[in-house]
Protein backbone atom coordinates (compact mmCIF):
# COMPACT_ATOMS: atom_id res chain seq x y z
CA UNK A 1 0.00 0.00 0.00
CA UNK A 2 1.11 3.53 -0.71
CA UNK A 3 1.42 5.36 2.63
CA UNK A 4 1.52 9.08 3.40
CA UNK A 5 4.22 10.44 5.70
CA UNK A 6 1.71 10.49 8.55
CA UNK A 7 0.70 6.87 7.94
CA UNK A 8 4.36 5.83 7.77
CA UNK A 9 4.97 7.58 11.08
CA UNK A 10 2.05 5.71 12.66
CA UNK A 11 3.39 2.43 11.31
CA UNK A 12 6.81 3.23 12.76
CA UNK A 13 5.23 3.68 16.19
CA UNK A 14 5.80 7.43 16.40
CA UNK A 15 2.23 7.98 17.61
CA UNK A 16 2.32 5.22 20.20
CA UNK A 17 1.54 1.50 20.23
CA UNK A 18 -2.25 1.84 19.87
CA UNK A 19 -2.02 3.71 16.58
CA UNK A 20 0.79 1.42 15.48
CA UNK A 21 -1.34 -1.68 16.14
CA UNK A 22 -4.25 -0.05 14.30
CA UNK A 23 -2.38 0.77 11.13
CA UNK A 24 -0.48 -2.52 11.12
CA UNK A 25 -3.81 -4.32 11.25
CA UNK A 26 -5.20 -2.14 8.47
CA UNK A 27 -2.15 -2.63 6.25
CA UNK A 28 -2.43 -6.42 6.65
CA UNK A 29 -6.09 -6.28 5.60
CA UNK A 30 -5.42 -3.74 2.85
CA UNK A 31 -2.63 -5.85 1.36
CA UNK A 32 -4.88 -8.91 1.40
CA UNK A 33 -7.50 -7.03 -0.63
CA UNK A 34 -4.98 -5.27 -2.91
CA UNK A 35 -5.83 -1.79 -1.59
CA UNK A 36 -3.69 0.88 -3.28
CA UNK A 37 -3.85 3.31 -0.36
CA UNK A 38 -5.97 4.56 2.55
CA UNK A 39 -9.11 6.70 2.38
CA UNK A 40 -10.16 9.07 5.21
CA UNK A 41 -13.42 8.07 6.93
CA UNK A 42 -16.08 10.30 8.51
CA UNK A 43 -17.31 7.86 11.18
CA UNK A 44 -16.53 4.44 12.61
CA UNK A 45 -19.10 2.06 14.13
CA UNK A 46 -17.92 -0.79 16.35
CA UNK A 47 -19.65 -4.14 16.74
CA UNK A 48 -18.32 -5.36 20.09
CA UNK A 49 -20.90 -7.11 22.26
CA UNK A 50 -19.36 -8.99 25.16
CA UNK A 51 -20.53 -12.39 23.90
CA UNK A 52 -18.25 -12.06 20.90
CA UNK A 53 -15.51 -10.12 22.70
CA UNK A 54 -15.26 -12.68 25.48
CA UNK A 55 -12.98 -12.07 28.43
CA UNK A 56 -9.95 -12.00 26.16
CA UNK A 57 -11.41 -9.24 24.00
CA UNK A 58 -12.38 -7.16 27.04
CA UNK A 59 -8.87 -7.52 28.48
CA UNK A 60 -7.43 -6.50 25.13
CA UNK A 61 -9.60 -3.33 25.15
CA UNK A 62 -8.57 -2.58 28.72
CA UNK A 63 -4.97 -2.89 27.59
CA UNK A 64 -5.59 -0.13 25.04
CA UNK A 65 -7.02 2.16 27.70
CA UNK A 66 -3.83 1.79 29.75
CA UNK A 67 -1.91 3.74 27.08
CA UNK A 68 -1.37 7.48 27.56
CA UNK A 69 -4.51 9.39 26.53
CA UNK A 70 -2.96 11.24 23.59
CA UNK A 71 -1.66 7.94 22.18
CA UNK A 72 -5.10 6.35 22.04
CA UNK A 73 -7.01 9.36 20.80
CA UNK A 74 -9.76 8.60 18.31
CA UNK A 75 -9.54 10.69 15.16
CA UNK A 76 -13.16 10.42 13.99
CA UNK A 77 -16.51 10.05 15.77
CA UNK A 78 -16.74 6.39 16.75
CA UNK A 79 -20.03 4.82 17.85
CA UNK A 80 -21.18 1.37 18.99
CA UNK A 81 -23.47 -1.41 17.83
CA UNK A 82 -25.79 -3.11 20.39
CA UNK A 83 -24.32 -4.41 23.63
CA UNK A 84 -24.39 -7.88 25.18
CA UNK A 85 -27.08 -6.98 27.69
CA UNK A 86 -29.35 -4.23 28.95
CA UNK A 87 -28.62 -3.43 32.61
CA UNK A 88 -32.32 -2.63 33.18
CA UNK A 89 -33.75 -5.91 31.87
CA UNK A 90 -31.03 -8.58 32.07
CA UNK A 91 -32.32 -10.20 35.26
CA UNK A 92 -35.79 -10.67 33.80
CA UNK A 93 -34.17 -12.38 30.78
CA UNK A 94 -32.08 -14.57 33.17
CA UNK A 95 -28.76 -13.26 31.99
CA UNK A 96 -26.18 -13.43 34.77
CA UNK A 97 -24.38 -10.93 36.97
CA UNK A 98 -21.13 -12.23 35.50
CA UNK A 99 -22.30 -11.21 32.02
CA UNK A 100 -23.31 -7.81 33.39
CA UNK A 101 -19.91 -7.35 35.04
CA UNK A 102 -18.10 -8.12 31.78
CA UNK A 103 -20.44 -5.77 29.92
CA UNK A 104 -19.70 -2.98 32.39
CA UNK A 105 -15.96 -3.51 31.92
CA UNK A 106 -16.26 -3.40 28.13
CA UNK A 107 -18.39 -0.25 28.23
CA UNK A 108 -15.96 1.43 30.64
CA UNK A 109 -13.06 0.62 28.33
CA UNK A 110 -14.84 2.04 25.28
CA UNK A 111 -15.85 5.16 27.21
CA UNK A 112 -12.23 5.63 28.31
CA UNK A 113 -11.23 5.53 24.65
CA UNK A 114 -13.76 8.25 23.82
CA UNK A 115 -16.19 5.99 21.98
CA UNK A 116 -19.81 7.23 21.94
CA UNK A 117 -21.93 4.42 23.38
CA UNK A 118 -24.85 4.66 20.97
CA UNK A 119 -25.42 0.88 21.27
CA UNK A 120 -27.46 0.75 18.10
CA UNK A 121 -27.68 -1.03 14.76
CA UNK A 122 -30.08 1.63 13.43
CA UNK A 123 -27.72 4.60 13.71
CA UNK A 124 -28.78 5.52 10.16
CA UNK A 125 -32.27 6.22 11.57
CA UNK A 126 -31.30 7.62 14.94
CA UNK A 127 -27.76 9.06 15.22
CA UNK A 128 -26.10 10.82 12.26
CA UNK A 129 -27.34 9.36 8.99
CA UNK A 130 -24.57 8.69 6.46
CA UNK A 131 -24.66 10.83 3.33
CA UNK A 132 -23.87 10.16 -0.31
CA UNK A 133 -20.17 9.81 -1.03
CA UNK A 134 -19.07 9.71 2.62
CA UNK A 135 -16.45 7.06 3.32
CA UNK A 136 -17.19 5.18 6.54
CA UNK A 137 -15.96 2.24 8.61
CA UNK A 138 -19.22 0.66 9.72
CA UNK A 139 -19.63 -2.52 11.70
CA UNK A 140 -22.94 -4.44 11.57
CA UNK A 141 -23.81 -5.80 8.17
CA UNK A 142 -27.26 -4.21 8.28
CA UNK A 143 -25.73 -0.78 8.84
CA UNK A 144 -23.27 -1.25 5.99
CA UNK A 145 -25.81 -2.39 3.43
CA UNK A 146 -28.20 0.45 4.35
CA UNK A 147 -25.40 3.06 4.27
CA UNK A 148 -24.10 1.87 0.90
CA UNK A 149 -27.39 1.22 -0.81
CA UNK A 150 -29.99 3.62 0.57
CA UNK A 151 -27.72 6.52 1.48
CA UNK A 152 -24.98 6.20 -1.15
CA UNK A 153 -22.22 6.25 1.45
CA UNK A 154 -19.21 3.94 1.15
CA UNK A 155 -18.24 1.24 3.62
CA UNK A 156 -17.10 -2.34 3.76
CA UNK A 157 -18.20 -4.72 6.48
CA UNK A 158 -15.76 -3.64 9.21
CA UNK A 159 -15.43 -6.11 12.07
CA UNK A 160 -14.97 -4.68 15.56
CA UNK A 161 -11.16 -4.61 15.60
CA UNK A 162 -11.06 -3.04 12.13
CA UNK A 163 -13.66 -0.39 12.97
CA UNK A 164 -11.75 0.51 16.14
CA UNK A 165 -8.56 0.69 14.08
CA UNK A 166 -10.33 3.06 11.69
CA UNK A 167 -11.47 5.19 14.62
CA UNK A 168 -7.86 5.42 15.82
CA UNK A 169 -6.29 6.18 12.44
CA UNK A 170 -9.21 8.11 10.90
CA UNK A 171 -8.93 6.10 7.70
CA UNK A 172 -9.46 2.66 6.20
CA UNK A 173 -7.85 0.74 3.34
CA UNK A 174 -9.40 1.72 0.00
CA UNK A 175 -10.86 -1.56 -1.31
CA UNK A 176 -14.25 -3.11 -1.94
CA UNK A 177 -17.19 -0.71 -1.68
CA UNK A 178 -14.98 2.37 -1.41
CA UNK A 179 -14.26 1.86 -5.13
CA UNK A 180 -16.66 2.76 -7.96
CA UNK A 181 -15.91 -0.52 -9.74
CA UNK A 182 -17.38 -2.64 -6.94
CA UNK A 183 -20.63 -0.66 -6.70
CA UNK A 184 -22.08 -1.62 -10.07
CA UNK A 185 -24.92 -4.12 -10.24
CA UNK A 186 -23.92 -7.70 -11.08
CA UNK A 187 -27.17 -9.67 -10.69
CA UNK A 188 -30.73 -8.78 -11.65
CA UNK A 189 -33.85 -9.87 -9.75
CA UNK A 190 -37.37 -8.84 -10.74
CA UNK A 191 -40.03 -8.92 -8.04
CA UNK A 192 -43.37 -10.19 -9.35
CA UNK A 193 -45.01 -10.45 -5.91
CA UNK A 194 -45.14 -7.25 -3.88
CA UNK A 195 -44.08 -7.50 -0.21
CA UNK A 196 -46.81 -6.34 2.18
CA UNK A 197 -45.22 -6.09 5.60
CA UNK A 198 -41.83 -6.05 7.28
CA UNK A 199 -41.60 -9.85 7.44
CA UNK A 200 -42.24 -9.96 3.68
CA UNK A 201 -39.49 -7.40 3.06
CA UNK A 202 -37.12 -9.49 5.16
CA UNK A 203 -38.17 -12.61 3.27
CA UNK A 204 -37.41 -10.87 -0.02
CA UNK A 205 -33.97 -9.98 1.33
CA UNK A 206 -33.48 -13.61 2.33
CA UNK A 207 -34.58 -14.93 -1.08
CA UNK A 208 -32.30 -12.55 -2.99
CA UNK A 209 -29.47 -13.08 -0.49
CA UNK A 210 -29.54 -16.86 -0.80
CA UNK A 211 -29.44 -16.58 -4.59
CA UNK A 212 -26.65 -13.99 -4.56
CA UNK A 213 -24.49 -15.56 -1.84
CA UNK A 214 -21.38 -13.38 -2.16
CA UNK A 215 -19.96 -10.24 -0.61
CA UNK A 216 -18.60 -9.28 -4.02
CA UNK A 217 -21.93 -9.34 -5.89
CA UNK A 218 -24.35 -6.38 -6.06
CA UNK A 219 -27.95 -7.47 -6.68
CA UNK A 220 -30.32 -5.11 -8.49
CA UNK A 221 -33.94 -5.54 -7.48
CA UNK A 222 -36.50 -4.20 -9.95
CA UNK A 223 -40.28 -4.45 -10.11
CA UNK A 224 -41.10 -2.72 -6.82
CA UNK A 225 -44.34 -0.85 -7.46
CA UNK A 226 -44.42 1.73 -4.68
CA UNK A 227 -42.24 3.95 -2.52
CA UNK A 228 -40.64 2.07 0.36
CA UNK A 229 -40.12 3.41 3.85
CA UNK A 230 -36.97 3.24 5.94
CA UNK A 231 -38.15 0.33 8.12
CA UNK A 232 -38.98 -1.73 5.03
CA UNK A 233 -35.57 -1.04 3.50
CA UNK A 234 -34.01 -1.80 6.89
CA UNK A 235 -35.55 -5.29 7.08
CA UNK A 236 -34.87 -5.99 3.41
CA UNK A 237 -31.21 -4.95 3.65
CA UNK A 238 -30.53 -6.67 6.97
CA UNK A 239 -31.85 -9.99 5.68
CA UNK A 240 -30.04 -9.61 2.34
CA UNK A 241 -26.76 -9.02 4.20
CA UNK A 242 -27.42 -11.86 6.63
CA UNK A 243 -28.42 -14.55 4.14
CA UNK A 244 -26.07 -13.53 1.35
CA UNK A 245 -23.16 -11.64 2.95
CA UNK A 246 -24.24 -8.89 0.56
CA UNK A 247 -23.05 -5.33 1.32
CA UNK A 248 -24.87 -3.33 -1.35
CA UNK A 249 -27.97 -3.48 -3.55
CA UNK A 250 -29.66 -1.21 -6.02
CA UNK A 251 -33.39 -0.65 -6.38
CA UNK A 252 -34.02 1.40 -9.53
CA UNK A 253 -35.99 4.54 -8.78
CA UNK A 254 -35.44 4.12 -5.03
CA UNK A 255 -31.71 4.00 -4.24
CA UNK A 256 -29.50 6.97 -5.16
CA UNK A 257 -26.97 5.30 -7.45
CA UNK A 258 -29.71 3.68 -9.55
CA UNK A 259 -32.17 6.27 -10.77
CA UNK A 260 -32.83 3.88 -13.66
CA UNK A 261 -32.30 0.16 -14.25
CA UNK A 262 -29.48 0.93 -16.69
CA UNK A 263 -27.76 3.20 -14.18
CA UNK A 264 -27.78 0.34 -11.67
CA UNK A 265 -25.65 -1.65 -14.11
CA UNK A 266 -23.23 1.20 -14.85
CA UNK A 267 -25.18 2.44 -17.90
CA UNK A 268 -25.03 -1.04 -19.43
CA UNK A 269 -27.98 -3.11 -20.61
CA UNK A 270 -29.48 -4.99 -17.67
CA UNK A 271 -28.95 -8.74 -17.72
CA UNK A 272 -31.97 -11.04 -17.81
CA UNK A 273 -33.73 -11.08 -14.46
CA UNK A 274 -34.34 -13.95 -12.07
CA UNK A 275 -38.04 -13.65 -11.18
CA UNK A 276 -39.10 -13.61 -7.54
CA UNK A 277 -42.67 -14.91 -7.41
CA UNK A 278 -45.26 -15.65 -4.74
CA UNK A 279 -44.22 -19.29 -4.44
CA UNK A 280 -40.70 -18.15 -3.51
CA UNK A 281 -42.17 -16.25 -0.56
CA UNK A 282 -44.39 -19.22 0.37
CA UNK A 283 -41.39 -21.55 0.31
CA UNK A 284 -39.31 -19.13 2.38
CA UNK A 285 -41.92 -18.82 5.12
CA UNK A 286 -42.70 -22.53 4.81
CA UNK A 287 -39.18 -23.52 5.87
CA UNK A 288 -39.81 -22.00 9.28
CA UNK A 289 -43.50 -22.83 9.66
CA UNK A 290 -44.70 -24.62 12.80
CA UNK A 291 -48.45 -23.95 13.07
CA UNK A 292 -49.95 -24.82 16.43
CA UNK A 293 -46.59 -25.16 18.21
CA UNK A 294 -46.19 -23.69 21.66
CA UNK A 295 -44.21 -20.48 21.33
CA UNK A 296 -41.64 -19.82 24.05
CA UNK A 297 -40.36 -16.41 23.05
CA UNK A 298 -41.56 -13.77 20.59
CA UNK A 299 -38.81 -11.36 19.54
CA UNK A 300 -38.98 -8.04 17.74
CA UNK A 301 -35.38 -7.10 16.94
CA UNK A 302 -32.63 -7.56 14.34
CA UNK A 303 -32.57 -4.74 13.47
CA UNK A 304 -33.63 -2.73 16.52
CA UNK A 305 -37.11 -1.20 16.27
CA UNK A 306 -37.79 2.32 15.12
CA UNK A 307 -40.16 4.46 17.15
CA UNK A 308 -42.77 3.77 14.45
CA UNK A 309 -42.42 0.00 14.86
CA UNK A 310 -42.69 0.40 18.65
CA UNK A 311 -45.91 2.36 18.15
CA UNK A 312 -47.28 -0.38 15.88
CA UNK A 313 -46.38 -3.02 18.46
CA UNK A 314 -47.97 -1.06 21.32
CA UNK A 315 -51.15 -0.68 19.26
CA UNK A 316 -51.34 -4.42 18.60
CA UNK A 317 -50.85 -5.23 22.31
CA UNK A 318 -53.33 -2.69 23.73
CA UNK A 319 -55.88 -4.40 25.97
CA UNK A 320 -54.21 -7.82 25.61
CA UNK A 321 -51.79 -9.96 27.65
CA UNK A 322 -48.93 -12.15 26.55
CA UNK A 323 -49.73 -15.74 27.53
CA UNK A 324 -48.18 -17.31 30.64
CA UNK A 325 -45.19 -19.36 29.51
CA UNK A 326 -44.43 -17.03 26.61
CA UNK A 327 -42.05 -14.07 26.72
CA UNK A 328 -42.34 -11.11 24.36
CA UNK A 329 -39.27 -8.93 23.85
CA UNK A 330 -38.84 -5.79 21.74
CA UNK A 331 -35.31 -4.43 21.37
CA UNK A 332 -34.54 -0.87 20.42
CA UNK A 333 -31.82 1.74 20.70
CA UNK A 334 -31.32 3.65 23.98
CA UNK A 335 -32.53 6.87 22.34
CA UNK A 336 -35.69 5.24 21.01
CA UNK A 337 -36.29 3.68 24.42
CA UNK A 338 -36.18 7.14 26.03
CA UNK A 339 -38.60 8.35 23.39
CA UNK A 340 -40.87 5.33 23.89
CA UNK A 341 -40.86 5.94 27.65
CA UNK A 342 -41.70 9.61 27.14
CA UNK A 343 -44.47 8.87 24.65
CA UNK A 344 -46.05 6.13 26.77
CA UNK A 345 -45.26 3.31 24.32
CA UNK A 346 -43.10 1.37 26.79
CA UNK A 347 -45.86 1.45 29.39
CA UNK A 348 -48.39 0.09 26.86
CA UNK A 349 -46.09 -2.79 25.86
CA UNK A 350 -45.24 -3.57 29.48
CA UNK A 351 -48.92 -3.50 30.43
CA UNK A 352 -49.29 -6.53 28.16
CA UNK A 353 -46.32 -8.15 29.97
CA UNK A 354 -43.90 -7.40 27.13
CA UNK A 355 -40.28 -6.40 27.71
CA UNK A 356 -38.79 -3.35 26.00
CA UNK A 357 -35.00 -3.75 26.09
CA UNK A 358 -32.62 -0.93 25.21
CA UNK A 359 -29.22 -1.11 23.55
CA UNK A 360 -29.36 -4.83 22.69
CA UNK A 361 -30.55 -6.75 19.66
CA UNK A 362 -31.32 -10.19 21.18
CA UNK A 363 -29.03 -12.39 19.10
CA UNK A 364 -25.97 -10.50 20.35
CA UNK A 365 -27.05 -11.08 23.94
CA UNK A 366 -25.89 -14.56 24.96
CA UNK A 367 -28.83 -16.11 23.10
CA UNK A 368 -27.77 -19.69 23.88
CA UNK A 369 -27.46 -19.03 27.61
CA UNK A 370 -30.82 -17.21 27.63
CA UNK A 371 -32.45 -20.19 25.90
CA UNK A 372 -31.02 -22.63 28.43
CA UNK A 373 -31.86 -20.48 31.47
CA UNK A 374 -35.43 -19.79 30.33
CA UNK A 375 -36.17 -23.15 28.70
CA UNK A 376 -36.77 -21.50 25.34
CA UNK A 377 -36.80 -23.40 22.08
CA UNK A 378 -39.53 -22.11 19.77
CA UNK A 379 -38.85 -18.51 18.81
CA UNK A 380 -41.24 -16.45 16.70
CA UNK A 381 -40.24 -13.19 15.06
CA UNK A 382 -41.01 -10.90 12.15
CA UNK A 383 -37.28 -10.59 11.41
CA UNK A 384 -35.94 -12.76 8.59
CA UNK A 385 -32.43 -11.88 9.71
CA UNK A 386 -33.12 -13.32 13.16
CA UNK A 387 -34.50 -16.64 11.89
CA UNK A 388 -31.31 -17.02 9.84
CA UNK A 389 -29.02 -16.41 12.79
CA UNK A 390 -30.74 -17.95 15.74
CA UNK A 391 -30.96 -21.64 14.81
CA UNK A 392 -27.22 -21.93 15.47
CA UNK A 393 -27.92 -20.96 19.08
CA UNK A 394 -30.26 -23.92 19.56
CA UNK A 395 -33.61 -22.23 18.81
CA UNK A 396 -36.35 -23.41 16.48
CA UNK A 397 -37.25 -20.18 14.69
CA UNK A 398 -40.48 -19.26 12.91
CA UNK A 399 -41.22 -16.18 10.80
CA UNK A 400 -44.51 -14.26 10.67
CA UNK A 401 -45.88 -10.75 10.40
CA UNK A 402 -45.87 -8.49 13.45
CA UNK A 403 -49.65 -8.96 13.74
CA UNK A 404 -49.39 -12.76 13.65
CA UNK A 405 -46.48 -12.67 16.12
CA UNK A 406 -48.58 -10.70 18.60
CA UNK A 407 -51.62 -12.94 18.11
CA UNK A 408 -49.37 -15.94 18.77
CA UNK A 409 -47.80 -14.34 21.84
CA UNK A 410 -51.28 -13.79 23.28
CA UNK A 411 -52.40 -17.33 22.41
CA UNK A 412 -49.13 -18.92 23.59
CA UNK A 413 -48.92 -20.93 20.38
CA UNK A 414 -48.33 -20.17 16.74
CA UNK A 415 -51.63 -19.17 15.17
Amino acid at each position, binding site marked *: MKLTDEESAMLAGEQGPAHQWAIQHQVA*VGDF*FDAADFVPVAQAHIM*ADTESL*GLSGVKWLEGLTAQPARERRLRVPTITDPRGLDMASYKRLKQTDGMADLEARASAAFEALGVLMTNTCINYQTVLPPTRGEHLAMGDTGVVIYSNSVQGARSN*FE*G*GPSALAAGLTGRTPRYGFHLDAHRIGTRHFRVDHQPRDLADWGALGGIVGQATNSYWEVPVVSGIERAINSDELKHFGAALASFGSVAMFHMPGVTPEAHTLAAAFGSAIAPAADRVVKSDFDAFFGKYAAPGDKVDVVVFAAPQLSIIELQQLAGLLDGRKVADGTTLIAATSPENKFAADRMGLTARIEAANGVVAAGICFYQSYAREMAEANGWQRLLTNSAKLVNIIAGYGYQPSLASMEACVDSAVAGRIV
Partner: protein
Amino acid sequence: MPIILKCHKGIGPAVTGMALVAEDNFSARYDLDRIKGVFSRPAHKLAGKSYVDRILVLVTAKGGVASAWMLREMAERGMAPKAIIFERTNTILAQGAAFAGMALVDRFEDGCPIELIRNGDELLIEPDRGQVTILNRDA
Protein backbone atom coordinates in the same frame (compact mmCIF):
# COMPACT_ATOMS: atom_id res chain seq x y z
CA MET B 1 5.93 -34.65 -5.57
CA PRO B 2 3.20 -33.17 -3.36
CA ILE B 3 0.39 -31.18 -4.95
CA ILE B 4 0.96 -27.42 -4.85
CA LEU B 5 -2.00 -25.02 -5.17
CA LYS B 6 -1.32 -21.34 -5.83
CA CYS B 7 -3.60 -18.68 -4.37
CA HIS B 8 -3.64 -14.97 -3.53
CA LYS B 9 -1.21 -13.84 -0.85
CA GLY B 10 -2.97 -14.52 2.45
CA ILE B 11 -2.98 -13.52 6.10
CA GLY B 12 -1.30 -15.07 9.13
CA PRO B 13 1.50 -17.58 9.75
CA ALA B 14 2.44 -20.76 7.86
CA VAL B 15 0.74 -23.80 9.42
CA THR B 16 0.14 -27.49 8.78
CA GLY B 17 -2.99 -29.42 9.63
CA MET B 18 -5.81 -31.69 8.51
CA ALA B 19 -8.49 -30.41 6.14
CA LEU B 20 -12.20 -30.38 7.00
CA VAL B 21 -13.99 -29.71 3.71
CA ALA B 22 -17.61 -28.84 2.92
CA GLU B 23 -19.53 -27.10 0.17
CA ASP B 24 -20.95 -24.62 2.65
CA ASN B 25 -20.17 -21.22 4.15
CA PHE B 26 -18.89 -19.93 7.48
CA SER B 27 -19.84 -17.58 10.25
CA ALA B 28 -18.50 -18.01 13.78
CA ARG B 29 -21.72 -16.52 15.16
CA TYR B 30 -24.29 -18.31 13.00
CA ASP B 31 -22.71 -21.74 12.65
CA LEU B 32 -20.70 -22.68 15.73
CA ASP B 33 -21.08 -23.76 19.31
CA ARG B 34 -17.89 -22.06 20.36
CA ILE B 35 -17.92 -23.59 23.83
CA LYS B 36 -18.07 -27.19 22.59
CA GLY B 37 -16.00 -26.50 19.47
CA VAL B 38 -18.49 -27.97 17.00
CA PHE B 39 -20.60 -26.74 14.11
CA SER B 40 -24.04 -26.27 15.66
CA ARG B 41 -26.39 -24.84 13.01
CA PRO B 42 -28.50 -27.86 12.04
CA ALA B 43 -28.60 -26.93 8.35
CA HIS B 44 -24.80 -26.65 8.06
CA LYS B 45 -23.12 -29.50 6.18
CA LEU B 46 -20.60 -29.89 9.01
CA ALA B 47 -23.27 -29.89 11.79
CA GLY B 48 -22.03 -31.82 14.80
CA LYS B 49 -18.40 -31.96 13.59
CA SER B 50 -15.50 -30.54 15.61
CA TYR B 51 -13.58 -27.73 13.97
CA VAL B 52 -10.88 -27.45 16.66
CA ASP B 53 -7.34 -27.48 15.18
CA ARG B 54 -8.68 -28.34 11.72
CA ILE B 55 -8.07 -26.40 8.52
CA LEU B 56 -11.55 -25.45 7.35
CA VAL B 57 -12.05 -25.49 3.58
CA LEU B 58 -15.32 -23.74 2.72
CA VAL B 59 -16.90 -21.63 0.00
CA THR B 60 -17.27 -18.19 1.54
CA ALA B 61 -17.73 -16.22 4.74
CA LYS B 62 -21.28 -15.21 5.62
CA GLY B 63 -22.82 -12.24 7.40
CA GLY B 64 -22.06 -11.40 10.99
CA VAL B 65 -19.26 -9.01 11.83
CA ALA B 66 -18.85 -10.75 15.20
CA SER B 67 -16.54 -13.35 13.68
CA ALA B 68 -13.80 -10.71 13.65
CA TRP B 69 -13.62 -10.79 17.47
CA MET B 70 -14.57 -14.43 17.84
CA LEU B 71 -11.62 -16.00 16.01
CA ARG B 72 -9.16 -14.46 18.45
CA GLU B 73 -11.27 -15.33 21.48
CA MET B 74 -11.57 -18.94 20.28
CA ALA B 75 -7.81 -19.13 19.58
CA GLU B 76 -6.98 -17.91 23.10
CA ARG B 77 -9.07 -20.73 24.56
CA GLY B 78 -7.45 -23.30 22.27
CA MET B 79 -10.85 -23.93 20.62
CA ALA B 80 -10.24 -22.47 17.18
CA PRO B 81 -9.66 -23.83 13.71
CA LYS B 82 -5.97 -23.87 12.79
CA ALA B 83 -6.60 -22.04 9.52
CA ILE B 84 -9.37 -21.24 7.05
CA ILE B 85 -9.37 -21.65 3.29
CA PHE B 86 -12.18 -20.04 1.28
CA GLU B 87 -12.94 -19.93 -2.40
CA ARG B 88 -13.41 -16.23 -1.66
CA THR B 89 -13.72 -14.60 1.73
CA ASN B 90 -15.68 -11.56 2.75
CA THR B 91 -13.94 -8.75 4.60
CA ILE B 92 -14.89 -9.85 8.11
CA LEU B 93 -13.05 -13.15 8.17
CA ALA B 94 -9.95 -11.56 6.64
CA GLN B 95 -10.03 -8.86 9.34
CA GLY B 96 -10.69 -11.50 12.01
CA ALA B 97 -7.79 -13.65 10.84
CA ALA B 98 -5.50 -10.60 10.91
CA PHE B 99 -6.64 -9.79 14.46
CA ALA B 100 -6.32 -13.41 15.64
CA GLY B 101 -3.02 -14.14 13.89
CA MET B 102 -4.74 -17.04 12.13
CA ALA B 103 -3.80 -18.27 8.65
CA LEU B 104 -6.39 -17.52 5.94
CA VAL B 105 -6.09 -17.79 2.15
CA ASP B 106 -8.48 -17.54 -0.81
CA ARG B 107 -8.62 -16.82 -4.57
CA PHE B 108 -7.01 -20.00 -5.97
CA GLU B 109 -5.55 -20.07 -9.49
CA ASP B 110 -6.74 -23.60 -10.36
CA GLY B 111 -10.37 -23.38 -9.28
CA CYS B 112 -12.43 -23.94 -6.19
CA PRO B 113 -10.52 -25.28 -3.16
CA ILE B 114 -13.41 -27.47 -2.03
CA GLU B 115 -12.94 -29.41 -5.29
CA LEU B 116 -9.14 -29.42 -5.14
CA ILE B 117 -8.78 -30.42 -1.46
CA ARG B 118 -10.26 -33.59 0.09
CA ASN B 119 -11.55 -34.11 3.59
CA GLY B 120 -8.65 -35.41 5.72
CA ASP B 121 -5.87 -34.12 3.45
CA GLU B 122 -2.73 -32.99 5.28
CA LEU B 123 -2.09 -29.39 4.25
CA LEU B 124 0.75 -26.89 4.54
CA ILE B 125 -0.55 -23.32 4.19
CA GLU B 126 1.99 -20.59 3.45
CA PRO B 127 0.03 -17.33 3.29
CA ASP B 128 3.08 -15.15 2.51
CA ARG B 129 3.86 -17.26 -0.57
CA GLY B 130 0.21 -17.57 -1.62
CA GLN B 131 0.54 -21.33 -1.57
CA VAL B 132 -1.16 -24.45 -0.16
CA THR B 133 0.59 -27.83 -0.38
CA ILE B 134 -1.32 -31.11 -0.14
CA LEU B 135 1.29 -33.21 1.68
CA ASN B 136 -0.37 -36.62 1.55
CA ARG B 137 -1.02 -36.84 -2.18
CA ASP B 138 1.27 -36.74 -5.23
CA ALA B 139 0.66 -34.62 -8.27
